[in-house]
């Protein structure tokens, strides 16, 4: 996936790193730390004097919003703006010790839908910044259709979300727009309710912001709100996504940035991480998502498109409760890479037997390859069979193969012979059989 969400802390760090280039007329103190527990925070205070000197705000930094409504922003002990280091540290320890309910949508202040439940592991701590509501603003940018769009509002925070249509001015730019065109158009479209005396400064900040969004390859960038007091800027809350395909050009510009999984989602399993690592080291493509490890049907499908139609068909015919994984291998992986990928799957699918006593199903599917050598990749699968034949038999695995492309006759013949020799149940089909028809055959057994 090309667009990846990053933590608020990382987003602020990236902007801070390039602050003077994009915002030469503004100052930003960049007083922010990210910690995982109270001890971390106390440690951080040894090198960041302001943590001892100022009153603080603490909140989780885990890719979800509406933290205020979820009661997860610490800004007062007895009264707003009186949080000291020790209070923040103990609050973080308290909040991170047990799983928390987080709601992603609200009707007014009432949460709607089911909460996500997970532990809080990352917090960001910053100085409490007293300011007037009138000093809060909103700005964001993203790509809509073929254009880049900047959204600007004189009101920030929750206000803007609840009155989007009336309060937000949006301006779209084609990808080929020049800096001058952009600057001119932003100046001409400053929201009417920005105070007259602040309009020019607001426009300059938005111009710098939009340029940073473009040049630093953000896919999404939002500051809600930012506080503008003369030339002093505070970034109270940020949301950002990076286009990670630009990573190779942005090594220095982004610095050390991480792509965490969303709150409430399970962390990647070691197997998924191993496949991801292997994928990053090859020109071929190896992808694995474990959906339901105890489920009955496992897929090892070649090709991004084919893997989707297999998943569609299994969901249609068997239902998703039977689908254990999603993934694909393609782009001409080597025999060794294919073997590794197959063994990873076989290991996962043979860990436990089906709860209802049915045999497991392994779909080795694929469309007609353009250039991947089928016999070569199947050699890798056969090698994996060798190592997992006993375990596969233990879970009553029935194997269905369908594939076409370069050398497919040899590949199919080899895999059939090998499975027969090892006593594995296998059915093998070529391009004369419709690509997803083996799903039907497997389910009818």
């Amino acid at each position, binding site marked *: *996936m*090309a*667009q990846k969400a990053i933590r608020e802390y990382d987003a602020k760090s990236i902007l801070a790193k390039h602050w003077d280039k994009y915002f030469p007329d503004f100052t930003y103190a960049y007083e922010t730390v990210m910690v995982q527990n109270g001890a971390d925070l106390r440690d951080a205070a040894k090198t960041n004097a302001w943590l001892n000197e100022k009153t603080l705000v603490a909140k989780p930094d885990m890719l979800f919003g509406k933290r205020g409504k979820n009661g997860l922003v610490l800004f007062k002990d007895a009264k707003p703006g009186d949080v000291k280091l020790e209070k923040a540290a103990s609050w973080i320890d308290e909040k991170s010790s047990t799983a928390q309910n987080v709601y992603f949508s609200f009707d007014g202040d009432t949460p709607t839908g089911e909460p996500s439940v997970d532990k809080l592991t990352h917090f960001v701590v910053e100085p409490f910044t007293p300011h007037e509501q009138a000093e809060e603003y909103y700005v964001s940018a993203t*790509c809509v*259709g*073929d254009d880049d769009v900047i959204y600007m509002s004189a009101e920030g925070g929750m206000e803007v979300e609840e009155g989007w249509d009336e309060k937000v001015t949006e301006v779209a730019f*084609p*990808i*080929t727009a020049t800096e001058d065109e952009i600057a001119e158009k932003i100046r001409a479209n400053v929201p009417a309710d920005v105070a007259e005396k602040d309009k020019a400064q607001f426009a300059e900040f938005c111009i710098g912001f939009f340029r940073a969004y*473009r040049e630093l*390859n953000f*896919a999404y960038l939002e500051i809600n709100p930012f506080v503008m007091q003369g030339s002093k800027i505070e970034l109270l809350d940020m949301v950002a996504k990076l*286009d990670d*395909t*630009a990573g*190779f*050009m942005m090594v220095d510009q982004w610095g050390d940035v991480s792509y965490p*999984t*969303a709150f409430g*989602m399970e962390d990647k399993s070691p197997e998924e991480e191993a496949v991801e690592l292997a994928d990053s080291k090859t020109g071929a493509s190896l*992808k694995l*998502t474990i*959906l339901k490890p105890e489920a009955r049907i496992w897929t090892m499908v*070649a*090709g*991004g*498109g*084919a*893997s*989707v*139609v297999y*998943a*569609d*068909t*299994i*969901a*249609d015919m068997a239902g*998703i409760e039977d*689908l254990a994984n*999603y993934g694909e291998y*393609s782009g001409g992986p080597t025999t060794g890479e294919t073997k590794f990928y197959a063994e990873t799957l076989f290991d996962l699918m043979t860990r436990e037997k089906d709860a209802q006593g049915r045999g497991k199903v392994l779909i080795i599917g*694929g*469309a*007609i*390859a*353009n*250039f991947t050598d089928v016999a070569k990749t199947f050699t890798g699968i056969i090698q994996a069979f060798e190592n997992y034949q006993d375990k596969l038999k233990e879970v009553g695995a029935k194997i269905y193969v369908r594939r*076409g*492309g*370069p050398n497919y006759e040899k590949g199919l013949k080899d895999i059939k012979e090998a499975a027969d020799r090892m006593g594995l149940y296998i059915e093998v089909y070529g*391009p004369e059989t*419709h*690509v*997803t*028809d083996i*799903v*039907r055959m497997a389910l009818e057994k």
Partner: protein
Amino acid sequence: MERLYTKDTQAIFWNNNKTAIQRMLDYDYTIKREKPSVAAIVAPTSGNKFEKFFYGPDEVMIPLFKTTADAKAAQPQADVLLNFASFRSAYDVTMEALEIGGFSSMMITAEGIPERLARGMNQTAREKGVTVIGPATVGAITPGAFKVANIGGTITNIVNSKLHRAGSCGLVTRSGGLFNELSNIISINADGIAEGVAIGGDRFVGSVFIDNLLRMEKNPDVKYMILLGEVGGTEEYKVIEAIKNGQITKPVIAWCIGTIAKHYDSGVQFGHAGASANAESETAEYKNNAMKEAGIHVPDSFNDLPAMINKVFTDMNIAEIPEPDMNTVPASRRSKEFICTISDDRGEEAHYCGYPISSVATPETGFTIGDVMSILWFKKRYPRWAVDFLETVLKTVADHGPAVSGAHNAKVTARAGKDVISSLIAGLLTIGPRFGGAIDGAAEHFKHANDNDMTPKEFLAHMKKSGIPIPGIGHRIKSLKNPDLRVTGLMKYAEENFPSTPLLDYARTVEELTTSKKENLILNVDGTIGILMVDMWRALDYTDEEIDVFIEAGALNAFFILGRSIGFIGHILDEKRLAMPMYRHPMDDILYDVKRAEEL
């Protein structure tokens, strides 16, 4: 543009991807194309001039170039760029080609080009009216005409899927693997495809579904269209819009894959980078329903797609397409180690560049030794004035007496009792920068100066700066007043017989300047020959690049080598006849200055 490709379409292939190019040529051979579909290969780091590929049982050579600009200049008719650069450089390659111009379409295979760069590249192409296929695609095909790289897979699969000749369907997919699968399904359930495009899996691709379908709507070969979409994005709605407003009237069959995505939250990425629904309207199910409502033929599932294609096709009653003759690519082929482009001894009689030896050998054929040289050395039969000039050169350089170093060496070797070949080689080995080599040097430097519009003064300054005495200028004793009659003869011949002598004219102005400094700094015989050779080739319409290749290859020195061999052999035979004894150089002609070697 009605059709993406025709049977005359030729491509410039960026990156020497031999397997993919061979697949294209196998396809070309199978469908009996007249010219290979790849006209040139850009291989920035290769030092080779061409790459060999099989064309059926034989081999052909495709030229290699270091830059797209060079390839395009040499093959201006090639208007398709197949950009196989990596995701790091694919953007630069595309932008450079857009700048060069003259391309109607570009295919970009790299996956994961930074989105902002891909958007800029796609937009620039759109503004210039260039169709971009990809990025992250396996390409496109017009069956029976032109196939991009690996699309369609192996030649066996291509024939099985009827991709060797035009059918009736216009096919557009996102996925490359499923493109192949669809071609197969269409060949089984209908009559194959007329044009097919896999638009690519990245989020931002150049030409989208609607661009390709609108072109296919205009293409008379396309009778109906199949669209295979994916979850994510809103491109399918543009197709619905075009059907509603009458821009698309041909029947459309469509299916969006990724119906499973609705069961999972956005954390699971199904399929390509472009495949992620950000709103309900981007889900596969929603798009499938919307397309159905708009009158598009939408099956109940991907598994039912073949039956739907069969039904729509059967209802259209399209006349059966005759199967064309095909060539069969041999199962086993061996690449040749050597290449010969000048003569052939395989027939009844050996040929010199297509001329049987008997047709050039005897006097009544009208061929002289100069004719034979022109066809064997330069693969063209030169007009009389040029042939006569070649012979004049040979005769002029045939000998220059026994004292010059080459003749002297030949004589010494012959007197040591060696045979003709050893003695000749001993003589020839002295030919080089100081002896005879001035012909090459004169041609090279005078041409360079003239090409770069240097005045004689600038030329002299340039040579002085490079620290090289001007080759072809200067004689031991001759001067303007006491001219070298060989030079006079050559110049007179050129004046009377060459259509024009621009480089000689230039060289004469240089000579005016040099002789004003010193009398004997005249254009000598080596210089005159080198310069007149360039004038001859220019008059024969060779390009500057071709002439430079001749000079680099050493063709000019070859005249000296061949001509002077006549003289050397004369001297060797002379020694043999005279039965002269072993030569030993007189010791009193050597300055002995030997000191004891220092110990270190």
